[in-house]
């Protein structure tokens, strides 16, 4: 039995807006490593680049750390690649540069670090000691770089992420492109109501929300409370939801909100909009259960299983979504689902064209930029 379903049916629908002080918590700076919440805490952590530069170090000490970190990165060689398709030294060195960018007050310093006066001090967003710890975690524990810096650059967005929330993948950027292309010649869909199911950090919902701005609306859902908190942080940072925390349940959008967040399993929190959706987008968990143990360490050891495990053949959630799509979409509505690759895509197209009744047209497989058949798209008749 999968974790997601036991939780999904057991937990009462939770409203995020029970805690009006949430947003204040989100912006509260974290001053030292000792106050860092543990990864299991439900409080979203502030990504490094948003913390105040309250720490100091001399350039010579920072450089010492950099040299140490670089040596560590170089010692990796291609061993991670051989082991599980992990990062090689070149990539780790680039990450090191980005870490310096995020952690120093003046991010561009990473370029000139070796030319600076050794005794001058530089302002940092975490202490040097913490930097040693973080880079050790990166190399020795294979903690994902994005969890180290607390953010992922995705499309033109910088999204806060942390343990317990899936790091958005570059492949998924294309879902927003597909929806954006649709809007350019279908004003009706642009003004409609959209749903991003299993929103995680909020990536797809925010990507679409930025395009919709003042026309349509997006409901973003997830089963994970932590994911919803992180998504709320990101949604608010991009000004797509101004009015958090009014009332216990908000079934209606406030005027200024482009995105509304709801907790629950797949279509369950969307009963009130059945048959009214202009579009459904989702990147549900799709990895077959027995692949999980062999995943790249950054993924298998650190990312939430709830976000990855799609059951025996990885299609539990995809099939559930496909089944529900017909009743949720209005006529002419659009869907796009991300999949594990060619096999899953073909399976879903077959399903949508035959078993899902005569409900869909223009069902297509769209490849990602690496050429892998990745998405299934189509329209409700």
């Amino acid at each position: 039995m999968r974790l997601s379903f036991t939780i999904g049916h057991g937990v009462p629908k939770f409203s995020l807006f029970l805690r009006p002080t949430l947003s204040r918590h989100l912006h509260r700076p974290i001053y030292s490593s000792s106050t860092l919440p543990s990864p299991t805490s439900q409080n979203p952590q502030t990504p490094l680049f948003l913390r105040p530069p309250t720490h100091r170090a001399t350039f010579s000490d920072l450089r010492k750390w950099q040299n140490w970190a670089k040596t560590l990165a170089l010692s990796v060689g291609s061993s991670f690649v051989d082991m599980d398709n992990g990062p090689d030294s070149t990539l780790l060195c680039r990450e090191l540069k980005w870490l310096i960018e995020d952690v120093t007050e003046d991010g561009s310093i990473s370029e000139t670090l070796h030319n600076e006066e050794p005794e001058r001090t530089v302002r940092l967003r975490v202490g040097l000691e913490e930097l040693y710890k973080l880079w050790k975690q990166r190399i020795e524990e294979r903690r994902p770089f994005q969890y180290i810096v607390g953010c992922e650059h995705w499309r033109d967005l910088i999204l806060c992420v942390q343990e317990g929330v899936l790091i958005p993948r570059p492949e998924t950027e294309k879902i927003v492109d597909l929806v954006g292309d649709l809007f350019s010649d279908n004003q009706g869909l642009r003004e409609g109501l959209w749903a991003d199911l299993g929103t995680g950090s909020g990536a797809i919902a925010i990507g679409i929300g930025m395009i919709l701005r003042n026309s349509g609306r997006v409901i973003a859902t997830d089963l994970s409370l932590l994911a919803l908190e992180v998504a709320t942080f990101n949604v608010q940072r991009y000004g797509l939801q101004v009015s958090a925390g009014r009332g216990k349940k908000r079934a209606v959008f406030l005027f200024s909100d482009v995105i509304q967040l709801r907790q629950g399993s797949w279509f369950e929190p969307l009963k009130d909009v059945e048959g009214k959706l202009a579009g459904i987008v989702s990147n549900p968990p799709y990895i077959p259960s027995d692949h999980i143990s062999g995943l790249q360490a950054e993924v298998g050891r650190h990312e939430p299983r709830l976000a990855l495990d799609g059951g025996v053949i990885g299609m539990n959630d995809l099939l559930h979504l496909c089944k529900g799509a017909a009743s949720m979409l209005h006529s002419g509505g659009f869907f796009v689902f991300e999949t594990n690759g060619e096999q899953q895509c073909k399976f879903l197209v077959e399903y949508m064209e035959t078993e899902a009744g005569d409900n869909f047209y223009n069902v297509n497989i769209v490849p990602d930029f690496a050429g892998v058949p990745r998405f299934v798209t189509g329209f409700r008749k």
Partner: protein
Amino acid sequence: MGMRSHSWRNLLKRFQSVFPTNPNSKSYGNGSSIVFIIVPPPIAASSPSFLRSFSSTELQPQLSANIIRIMEQRLSAIEHRSASLQNLINQPEASPADYARANKELRKLRTSTDLISKLRAKQKEIDGLKLLMSESSEDNDMLSMATEELGQAIEEEKRLQNFLLKSLLPKDAADERDCILEVRAGTGGEEASLFAMDIFKMYEKYSQKKGWKFEVVDLTESDLKGYKEASAAISGADVYGKLKFESGIHRVQRVPVTEKSGRVHTSAVSVAILPQADEVDVQLRNEDLRIDTYRSGGSGGQHANTTNSAVRITHIPSGIAVAIQDERSQHMNKAKALKVLCAKLYEMERFRIQSSRSKLRSEQIGSGDRSERIRTYNFPQGRVTDHRVNITHHAVNDVMEGENLDVFIDALLLQQEMDALTSFSSSQQN
């Protein structure tokens, strides 16, 4: 001895070859000529303001009778056109479309027509003064006053004529665009990469001084932290118009930091300046593009977590490919690659149009011959020489700091203007 002797003699020589000034010669074409009064500044050859003042006051082209005649023809054509447009607009039965079109054209002519009416007023004043002088040949006071005023009025007329002429000269429509800067290390190994970095930073500092925005697009570092290749997007006022002359081979002579024996090496860096363009400018079609991304073996998607978001875009019809890896998201890498690709396609198209035009135009500087050696930076002698205008500036370190690049750029702009004048007068003759 440095810039003064070199540059003046050289510019003068060049102008004389373009605009022969010997009035007795019967053979120089159809009589078009421009006389330049050149007054070399008294001192300080390396004064940075030297060329600026040079191009404004000391060097005031005196337009030959022939150029003035050609210009007059153009001016009256403009006056005619503007009058008939005005007429059309005043007609009550003009259709809204005609009205709008006429209005738009009139607006475009406005700068010229304003200048023309100023010129006409000045010319009327001159006629009046001349008349006055002929009528008051006995009144000495009056005569001297009128003479003085006439002198001023004629000066003013010349100024207006020069101004008008400039506005009539063909402009490169791309001058106002932003640009893409590409610097590539050439011959000379590691030293060339280090110099490529220096040159890249020189443009960065120059851009800062100009108040332009300088965004690094992509960097490929060499082993010693130089740049094998570097590109940037520069935006601001008239960026392309100012920087376009920087395209070409920049040569460096210095003792490389890697050289133990202290021997001077020569290496080279190539610079390309491309006007920025968008998908519409180059009529880019999605189906002409192939986009490749890094693929970390395996199935990708949720299986993999990589921070490698490199993107390569290939324009299938031309085979041009651009790869960008420095941004932290794939989307941003893609956007940058597309920007550079559009600039390249636009440049190709410009080059195609240009080379199908007259030879004269394609020979002009700034036409983007990347293989031409345009400048030498000699560190032991502390000088920078631009080989096209043959100007030497004796403060190589200032130049590298983005300080005195204008010395060269202004001279090249001036030269461009001269070239335009040549084609203006020759185009009217045949």
